């Protein structure tokens, strides 16, 4: 298994204002040996990102204070985080929301509620397609080595 599809090589930041949403996602990722840091607000999430660059970010959209759209905007404006893969993790379940999310610059989209059965495989498929896009050189293992 390559480092891209191996959850054990992932360093994930989850930003969501619902502790129980974080709880399920975190449990599943930790079960698959991923490294997980979680934040209950957009501001707290940005702080985690500046402390150490993760492999990718799971970002809720509807949050009080800094919304997911604003957090994404700040990530894209930051020179060191600009190419960080950011996946939306939201309860926006309507058709067309997906397009709206991708247009806004998210790298992928997972709708809540997540299914623990398929979450990790969905996520790794999504991350693989982002990592394989030409010109993207952030090999997750390199990132991990650099930060450690």
């Amino acid at each position, binding site marked *: 298994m390559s480092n891209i599809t191996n959850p054990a090589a992932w360093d994930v930041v989850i930003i969501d204002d*619902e502790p*129980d*949403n974080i*709880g*399920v996602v975190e*449990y*599943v990722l930790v*079960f698959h040996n991923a490294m997980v840091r979680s934040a209950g607000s957009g501001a707290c999430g940005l702080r985690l990102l500046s402390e150490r660059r993760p492999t990718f970010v799971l970002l809720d959209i509807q949050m009080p204070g800094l919304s997911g759209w604003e957090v994404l905007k700040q990530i894209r404006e930051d020179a060191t985080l600009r190419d960080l893969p950011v996946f939306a993790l939201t*309860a926006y379940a309507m*058709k067309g929301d997906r397009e709206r999310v991708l247009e806004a610059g998210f790298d992928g989209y997972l709708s*809540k*509620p*997540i*299914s*623990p*059965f398929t979450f990790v495989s969905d996520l790794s498929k999504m991350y693989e397609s982002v990592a394989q896009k030409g010109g993207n050189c952030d090999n997750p293992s390199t990132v991990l080595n650099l930060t450690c």
Partner: protein
Amino acid sequence: MSSLAQEPSSKHVPTLRLGSPAWFTNWFKPRSDDPATFFRERTIRTFSASMLVIALLSLIASLIFYSNSASAKSTAYIAVIGITAAVIIGAIVAIHRGYISASAWLLVSAFLIAAYGILLIDTYTSHLVVPIFMLVFLLWTLILPRNSLWMLLLSSVIGIPAIIMLQGAQSLSIGGLFGIIVDTSIPLLAEAIGLYVFRFEFDSRLENSEAARVRAEAADRLKTQFLSSVSHELRTPLNAIKGYVEIMLGGMAGTFTDKQIQLQQHIHTNAERLLALINDILDLAKIESGTVEVLLTLASPRKVVTEIVESNRSLIQKKPVALEVHVDEAVPETVQWDVNKVQQILTNLVANAIKFTDQGKVSVDVHNKDTMLQIVVSDTGIGMPADAPNYIFDMFRQVDGTDTRKHQGTGLGLTITKRLVDKMGGTISVATTQGQGSAFTVTLPRWMDAATKAVKA
């Protein structure tokens, strides 16, 4: 000509009226949003247009009639009609620019110029004073701002006797003059009071109905907001329950005994049922409050229907049930539909048919029906009692309590389906025989247009 090529033209036919160019019909449409002003504006637009036509016709007629006699009287007539026409044109320009009150005053002035002018020129027209001014008062009541209506009363008491005195001063005695003043003032005063009361009542009713509409809209918005926030609040913990149980069921939290796994499965099933119910209630609330928009796109009915049927095939599980689709050759390749809503309607019907059919087949037939498209979802399932079509589309109604328990469902699926079909300007009906199966027939327009969008579910 293919049936497809006919579609766009048939869509436009009803909006065309003989001999009425768009600018002409548009002229009579008020631009104002406020209902009280709306009514006044329409009256002004109608009155000014017809008055201009009358004034111009009488101008032409009097020019022809008086062309041989250049008397002072004929010149005065032509001058009065000419000035009246000019003031009416001023009123038309004012309303076109959006100055409603200014236009109303100009229009009333035009009437007064015509009336006073004719009365002053010809003494013998004095018997027309009362009818002419009644007409002016009526117009006045309809188009002037309400706070200037007191002038009606004033002019009826002062203006009219004054003009009659001007006319009759030479020939009438004081008693005769007084008689004429009473004769003209009393009916005009009575009419003015009556009209004033009418206008007051009319305006207050408009204001009341407007206030009621605003209140109802606010309540509706509040209801939708409340429902969507409540459903979010309900879904979040429920998703957490479901998620944690799935963690256990997925073997991510150690091993459990068979008994424990069975209980976890019960928790899971019930969480899913509750989620489905919440989603359905939210859907219905959205449709009822009119916040659901119809989004039209070009789509292939063949493709849409086949995809929906195939995506529901897994629901058959191991039952000996055949699932068939038949799309008639004549069905056009392109229709204008809200694909998401058609998908939701068909998914509901097909999933229902599969749910209530233990053996035999479920078939979906698509064919043309006049300018509509008919989709029939029929099954060889348990069917329903003969009276079921009367209530099956009502909220929370399944055929009976035992079925509700055996065939789990929210009882809202068909209600949502019917509301969506209504919203798109279609119809839905059902034919059923107990023990032999049911057939749901959905008829949808092939081309939905702006008129359909306006239909509130």
